[in-house]
């Protein structure tokens, strides 16, 4: 295991409590958890791409960063307007 994969393992391990946090508690606490999980997921994909020496995984990280932003923003706007 190289340093990149070790770093990815720590970030993925951090995702677990944040994921559990996103399933419990008040509504906006969950949104914050989702927002943090999106960032951590993007970082984990970058670290895994470098750790496994695969160029194509970087594309996944780029797409995930943009798509998670759009999804979370739509979710937040929905909560603000209709709930």
């Amino acid at each position: 295991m190289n340093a990149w994969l070790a770093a990815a393992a720590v970030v993925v391990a951090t995702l677990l409590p944040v994921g559990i946090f996103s399933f419990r508690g008040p509504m906006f606490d969950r949104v914050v958890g989702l927002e943090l999980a999106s960032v951590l997921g993007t970082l984990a994909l970058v670290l895994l791409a470098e750790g496994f020496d695969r160029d194509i995984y970087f594309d996944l990280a780029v797409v995930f960063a943009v798509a998670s932003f759009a999804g979370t923003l739509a979710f937040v706007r929905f909560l603000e307007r209709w709930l």
Partner: protein
Amino acid sequence: MTAQSVVVDVLLAAGVALAVAGSVGVLLMASPLDRLHYVTPVSVVSAVVVAAAVVVKESFDARGLKAILVAVTLLFLGPVLTQATARAARVEQHGDWRLEAGEKRRGRR
């Protein structure tokens, strides 16, 4: 161990430590607005530091440029999302994001 690998390891350690610290902060704080303060450093600083580690190792080839693209995406979109979330939380608590009559801004004396 070369100087390049030492720099990469230091940058990786800093980025991951900041991500873990931000996660702990989010888990420990009491309100959504307080929690949001710990999300932005992860999306801004951690992403830039990890991208810097990739660039130090790979230089400005396809991987380095894609890592920079990810960092720039998180750098600009993260604060936008944080602001939108804070605004929505404020609207949920008070019905409007603007200051109410007689209310003072937090952090101002």
